[in-house]
């Protein structure tokens, strides 16, 4: 069976084609194409501009994907699209494209939960069978474990997502959004030396990032590091007797990463202890961060387990994860009638009945 997956819940437009061979051999990725809407430094992506980007690229991407996968429309079994959660306008433009393809080609539609897509893709690529999942991206921060036909949320953010915290701090420092603000923060953080005190807000298995963002934004303002025209390279830190001094932008990125990733590792560890699991799977855009993977690896090793993570092809929003989750559902007989092929900005991971797992 072959499925096309369309993903556009944020600034990435992804088209992917997955094949589940009929003889039961492992699923294959036939095409995985992505085009990202990049906003200028200091700015985030606005829904209407992102939707416009998706509308103007979706046809090109679908054509290119079909060509790359060397499949004809006739071979495709279903069209999978992201039903939610995500930004309204971009979701809508992709849902319209999915509906159009479905009517044009006479193929079934399958609405997919974005978070479930990430989890299923991560499981497929890493081979992790029943891990505790840390799903970290620009819009979501959740610790998830599977139990009785649901991906249950054990912990999550109480306010903004961890990726949103990083993205917005990148805006404060006017760091480039190309290829991704989080990636550029990660590179800058490698040069950081001094750990500045930031709030640490873990509540049980939940955490909060808005106060940390406000604090680090405040520090940036205090030391005049925010906004355009700063010159961080020539700025050699002046240290006092305790080894503390004026932090550089790199120090702030370093401190921000160390603090929020410690929180994420801590809540993941707590969920692992709670459900008695030794495997961790990191998915979502922030999951590409190598420092996060490293910290998670140390934690997992100390618990006698290991961490599974993927690279940017599968971590960052993509079409194949939607095709993968959609195809799993489609094989159990699930379809989304045209009447119900709407999308929604709020769609909790545990709302989905996971019929395909035991």
């Amino acid at each position: 069976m072959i499925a096309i997956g369309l993903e556009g819940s944020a600034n990435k437009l992804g088209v992917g084609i997955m094949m589940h061979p009929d003889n039961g051999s492992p699923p294959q990725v036939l095409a995985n194409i992505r085009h990202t809407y990049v906003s200028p430094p200091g700015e985030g992506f606005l829904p209407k501009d992102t939707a416009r980007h998706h509308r103007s690229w979706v046809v090109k991407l679908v054509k290119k994907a079909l060509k790359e996968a060397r499949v004809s429309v006739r071979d495709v079994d279903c069209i999978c699209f992201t039903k939610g959660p995500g930004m309204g306008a971009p979701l809508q433009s992709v849902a319209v494209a999915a509906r159009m393809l479905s009517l044009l080609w006479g193929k079934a539609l399958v609405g997919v939960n974005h978070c479930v897509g990430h989890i299923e893709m991560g499981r497929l690529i890493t081979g992790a069978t029943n891990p505790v999942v840390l799903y970290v991206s620009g819009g979501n921060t959740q610790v998830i474990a599977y139990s009785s036909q649901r991906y249950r949320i054990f912990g999550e953010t109480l306010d903004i997502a961890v990726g949103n915290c990083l993205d917005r701090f990148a805006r404060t420092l006017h760091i480039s959004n190309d290829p991704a603000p989080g990636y550029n923060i990660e590179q800058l953080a490698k040069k950081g030396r001094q750990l500045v005190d930031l709030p640490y807000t873990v509540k049980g298995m939940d955490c909060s990032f808005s106060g940390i963002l406000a604090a680090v934004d405040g520090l940036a303002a205090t030391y005049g590091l925010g906004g355009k025209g700063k010159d961080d390279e020539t700025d050699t830190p002046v240290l006092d007797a305790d080894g503390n001094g004026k932090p550089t932008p790199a120090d702030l990125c370093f401190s921000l990463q160390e603090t929020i990733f410690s929180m994420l590792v801590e809540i993941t560890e707590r969920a692992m202890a709670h459900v008695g699991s030794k495997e961790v799977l990191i998915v979502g855009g922030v999951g590409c961060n190598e420092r996060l993977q490293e910290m998670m690896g140390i934690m997992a090793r100390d618990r006698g387990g290991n961490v599974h993570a993927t690279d940017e092809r599968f971590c960052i929003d993509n079409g194949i994860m939607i095709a993968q989750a959609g195809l799993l559902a489609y094989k159990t007989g699930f379809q989304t009638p045209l009447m119900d092929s709407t999308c929604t900005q709020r769609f909790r991971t545990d709302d989905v009945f996971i019929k395909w797992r035991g």
Partner: protein
Amino acid sequence: MASPEPYTPPPLPTPFTHTTPPPTLLTQGAEAHIYKTTHLTPTTPAALKVRPSKPYRHPILDRRLTRQRILQEARCLVKLVREGVSVPAVFALDWEGQSGDGAWLLMEWIEGVVVRVVFERWEAFMKAGGEGLRGERWRAEEEKVRGLMRGIGAVVGGLHRAGVIHGDLTTSNLILRSGVEGEREREREMEGEVVLIDFGLAAQSSSEEDRAVDLYVLERAFGSTHPRCEMFFGEVLVGYRDSYKGAAVTLKRLQDVRMRGRKRSMIG
């Protein structure tokens, strides 16, 4: 990504390296290792909570968090013991981890079964055919669960009355004190005093919001760990309602907390 290096648990902090018999490791929680040992006399059992340093964390951050948490935990426990809430008493602590092998807290030993296990056993029993029970026997089963739920509500109420919130209420952090070791018969498996443990995330607060959130966390924990028992969660609130004067206000606030999409307000 997998790192197959073998892991050996960190060594015990100094005073406990000379204990005979040596402390036995019971659980490796997320934050701490719990050992069973003795205090002062070989017949006084004690629980030792060691917070080893977390190598994944930056050392400065690690020291700050460990110190903050172990002191907070001890302060809450001491206060609760004074207020007569059933929690383990504090014997001794070292918040700096002077030996370099972690900060530790030595507490009274609570003999009993973790409530999570009690419910799991019951759920397993129900799954294995108990659900077919009718009439008198089903009512007896139901009453057992309801009784334990009320007991949980009462102890949480006592905690809140004393001005402390737990911060991580799950059934893993409740012990059903039995006084004796070993298995008990099915009829009496849910009898006994409920004792709260693990105050690693506790804080002193009398705000109804914090209290309501505490209850909400417990409610969600039931939903995710004991789906079959969730229907009886109302009994926890019944037990809670009668436990202190401000309980009704907190329960009203709980309604609001449930209504919010995200779970907790970060006011204050």
